């Protein structure tokens, strides 16, 4: 292994790499935000919605959760780029968002249902309306409960973003392949890519645990 030559090549490739990493982070980040919002809607529908609403959302959820994320990505890409002329980025973002929302929705639903019934009753007993009860009593507790799973979902999303390379989104994996095509050092550049993914996921987990500690209730 020729280190000096490799570092020279690495330096040449730095812009491409930074762009690739940026794309990975950006698309994962947007997908997490949108997916979480959508996921909250899913959870609310499943816990508080009417029978029809629950049925429809449940079908959607089971469908998405039973489908591999790669299939979601390919399906969104082929369907949406053909019909509505979406770019790979947009199609991939939609796929990741939907994927994220299914996980967030299921986790939040579980967290809400795990709350003791007495909490809702105590809120009712002091005269809180349903909305007030949800915002001030139930949600803070459910969100704390769902936090570890949410952190996990965020890491999964970053890992799933690698599959977007297949539909042509220039994130880190595709960037790495492009760089190797010009500067054939597969082992070294893949190592760099692996290191980056490791650092991102590891940091997410670390950050997550720090947040968990911060919002944990004293006991």
């Amino acid at each position, binding site marked *: 292994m020729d280190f000096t030559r490799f570092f020279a090549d690495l330096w040449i490739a730095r812009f491409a790499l930074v762009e690739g990493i940026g794309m990975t982070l950006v698309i994962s980040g947007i997908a997490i935000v949108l997916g979480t919002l959508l996921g909250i809607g899913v959870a609310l529908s499943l816990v508080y919605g009417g029978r029809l609403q629950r049925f429809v959302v449940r079908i959607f959820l089971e469908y998405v959760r039973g489908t591999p994320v790669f299939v979601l990505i390919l399906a969104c890409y082929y369907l949406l780029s053909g019909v509505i002329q979406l770019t790979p980025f947009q199609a991939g973002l939609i796929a990741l968002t939907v994927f994220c929302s299914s996980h967030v929705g299921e986790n939040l639903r579980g967290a809400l249902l795990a709350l*003791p019934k*007495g*909490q809702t*009753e*105590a*809120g*009712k*007993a*002091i*005269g*809180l*309306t*349903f909305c*007030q009860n949800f915002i*001030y*009593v139930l949600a*803070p*507790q459910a969100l*704390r409960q769902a936090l570890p799973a949410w952190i996990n979902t965020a890491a999964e999303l970053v890992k799933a973003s690698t599959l977007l390379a297949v539909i042509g989104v220039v994130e880190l994996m595709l960037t790495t392949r492009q760089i190797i095509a010009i500067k054939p050092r597969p082992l070294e550049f893949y190592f760099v890519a692996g290191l980056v993914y490791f650092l991102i996921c590891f940091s997410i987990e670390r950050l997550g645990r720090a947040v968990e500690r911060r919002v944990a*209730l*004293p*006991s």
Partner: protein
Amino acid sequence: MPAPVLEITDLHKKFKEIEVLKGVDLSMATGDVVSVIGSSGSGKTTMLRCVNLLEDFQQGSIRIDGEEIGYTASPERRRRKESEIARQRSMTGMVFQQFNLFPHMTALGNVTLGLIKVKKLPKPDAVAIAEKWLERVGMAERRNHYPGQLSGGQQQRVAIARAIAMNPKVMLFDEVTSALDPELVNEVLNVIKSLAADGMTMLLVTHEMKFAYEVSRRVVFMNQGRIDEQGAPEEIFRNPQSKRLAEFLKNTKF
């Protein structure tokens, strides 16, 4: 004679197919302290939970200070709007067996939540009232502690403060010492006794017979969804009329 503050008339409740309350009549004046005793399944907790509409009921009426609770009487029996029911609930205060404090708020936060969000008081006023009641139940020093940092008896006292700070017309107590370790029971009972002495209107479901005897103005014995007997503590405990009450008292430690 002044109008009763709580009036339950011919209350019937079915749970699925089983009739749990079979026509309950109960009347309380302001300042009354009424204990409800009876074996499990007698319907006493269900009756209590109907008063603040945590349970619905199919027939009969409950009036607090003359106002029909939960359902409109005329022109036809209809369940009231949720926002109205929420408002009616703030006329009563309930203390639960499992305390049900909000774990993510301090003791002070638990007490001020209702004052701020339901009674719409500005925060300083709410805090002042909350601190007064926390002081009253002996928890002022722990106002900034979280429920997870408090013992069972302390949590239950905060729960009492939370309910009473809302200035309810009737306080409802649902077996509030049953989930406590024996050595913590007394601190809660003493708080309740002192509130009763101050003239708070209370309806208590309890297993603590000695306590019921000491604190109540009237004791109600419920059996299989009906009130079998009610009267002064002396009468109920020393001189039970109905056979079932006599048997019940024999089986409980009094």
